[in-house]
């Protein structure tokens, strides 16, 4: 059990012939850990997430899931790994087919990852995944425009969870949500970690979110990881300039004494 769930070594990612957007990135994610990735827009944190999900091909470096090299896998093995790390997008509205009923959208990943299941069984699993996240039966037949942003973000999570992953890759999961809804989704993530032992890689620009639910955080700046630590320590004693700027950019979030 000492092998981390995910180990990334010396990763370099570039788009086309341009200079790399990620350079020398190394990190590890333990089972059941919530790891925060923070940084300014354009720092490369979303690219990192996309690469780990298999949506970008790294130029060099290695991505090991439980000690196994991702790029050396056969197609089938690659698919099995993709199932285990599911991506959840920032803007749930753009992540859904507007014409598809929500329950079908949630069932869709099973077509790929559990092709042997019957349609009825797929639907059953999708309904269970939605019900687990507090989404009522009345929502299941609706289409994305028929539900609120917070509900749709939950549907996004249900779609990720339906294939029973070990890790969630979350790209700014609450920043597009209303303030009174953010806490609901953060609580949900916190609970999922405890009830299912899910590991999470959470990309955000908001250090308050990181402090609230992340066990550890990495600061990304100009394509590199420049600082790592326990969130409170990063907040109280930032050592790198990039971290310091992120801390300073925050409203203090403290009540005046």
């Amino acid at each position, binding site marked *: 059990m000492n092998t981390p769930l995910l180990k990334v070594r010396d990763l370099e990612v570039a788009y086309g012939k341009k200079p790399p957007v990620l350079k020398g990135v190394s990190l590890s994610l333990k089972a059941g850990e919530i790891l925060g990735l923070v940084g300014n827009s354009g720092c490369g944190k979303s690219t990192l997430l996309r690469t780990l999900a298999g949506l970008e091909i790294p130029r060099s470096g290695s991505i090991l899931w439980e000690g196994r090299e991702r790029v050396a896998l056969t197609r089938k093995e690659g698919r099995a790994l993709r199932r285990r790390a599911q991506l959840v997008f920032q803007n749930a509205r753009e992540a859904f087919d507007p014409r598809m009923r929500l329950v079908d959208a949630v069932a869709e990943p099973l077509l790929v990852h559990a092709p042997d299941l019957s349609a009825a069984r797929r639907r059953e699993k999708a309904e269970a995944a939605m019900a687990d996240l507090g989404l009522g039966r009345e929502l299941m037949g609706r289409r994305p425009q028929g539900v609120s942003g917070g509900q749709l973000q939950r549907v996004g999570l249900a779609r990720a969870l339906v294939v029973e992953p070990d890790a969630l890759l979350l790209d700014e999961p609450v920043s597009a949500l209303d303030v009174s809804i953010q806490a609901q989704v953060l609580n949900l993530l916190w609970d999922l970690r405890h009830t299912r032992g899910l590991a999470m890689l959470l990309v955000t620009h908001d250090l308050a979110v990181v*402090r609230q639910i992340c066990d550890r955080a990495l600061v990304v700046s100009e394509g590199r990881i420049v600082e790592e630590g326990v969130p409170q320590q990063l907040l109280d004693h930032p050592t790198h300039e990039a971290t310091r700027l992120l801390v300073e*950019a925050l409203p203090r*979030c403290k009540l005046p004494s």
Partner: protein
Amino acid sequence: MSRAKRVSAPVLDLVWDDLRLRFPGQKNPVLDGVGLRLEAGRTLGLLGESGSGKSLSTLAALGLLPRSAIHVGGTIRLGDTDLLSLDARARRRLLGATLGAVFQDPSTALNPYLTVGFQMSEGLRRIDGIPGREAREICLEALETCRIREPRRALRSRPHELSGGEKQRVLIAMATVRHPDFLLADEPTTALDVATRGAVLEVLLERGHDLGMGLLLVSHDIFLLGECVEQMAVMYAGRIVESGPTRRLLTSPRHPYTRGLLAAAPRLEGPRGRLPEIPGHPPAVDERLPGCPFAPRCSLALPSCAQERPAWVSLGEEGGFACPVTETEG
């Protein structure tokens, strides 16, 4: 000319009084009795979630409401003038000279074909009749005070040549170049990169202070407003549910919604893990109850809350709130 006018006439407050608006096809009003007072030279924060009506309240003052909006009742007054009854001509005289505005997305607020200098000096040249050379100097000065590093270059450039943060600072300079009495800023930093938000906010507050403008800062972020404004008003489902000095709202909020927002926000201190969440979601316009729109999400709600519109409880200097349940607290 706006510059001369400022010296002579005393500036009056900008007052939203029981403003009610409706959209066709909806049975409930989208703004349901909004009351706000932006005092001359002071700062007011308007806090609300998307759909609460905070942007509509701002747009109404600027005469920029969607055409389909139906004015059901109430006024927005500046002295004796009701801004909602102005014709297009009178409104044009007001915008820029008396009321300035900054919006959320700087990338859509500038004309991409024109140089910054041309669009920025337009009001000065065409309305105030200031000669081009002099107008240019005034613009340069405004850009400089808004911390645009090379103001001469900025004047010559077109919008795409500026970064997001620069564009928003240019827009602040542009909105204030004719020294309006009030500046209405609707989520001016939300669309910007985190790293540039602080600087833009600083420029906005400084500029407001230096010119003695009344500043309305609209935001969804209670902590951001907490750092920036003297007075705050909390909006929920088309109504103001609480208002008062920022300090009072942050330290002893009285409306359950304000309390819920403060408790639910991730913090830089205190316990980690689960947050005290507000259940449910803000109601769509036609889901709103005749009584208190927050009642279905409120842990303190009484059966009567859903039916009876809560009366405004005044706290004098400390503002007020609309909740009959917390009214009885000692």
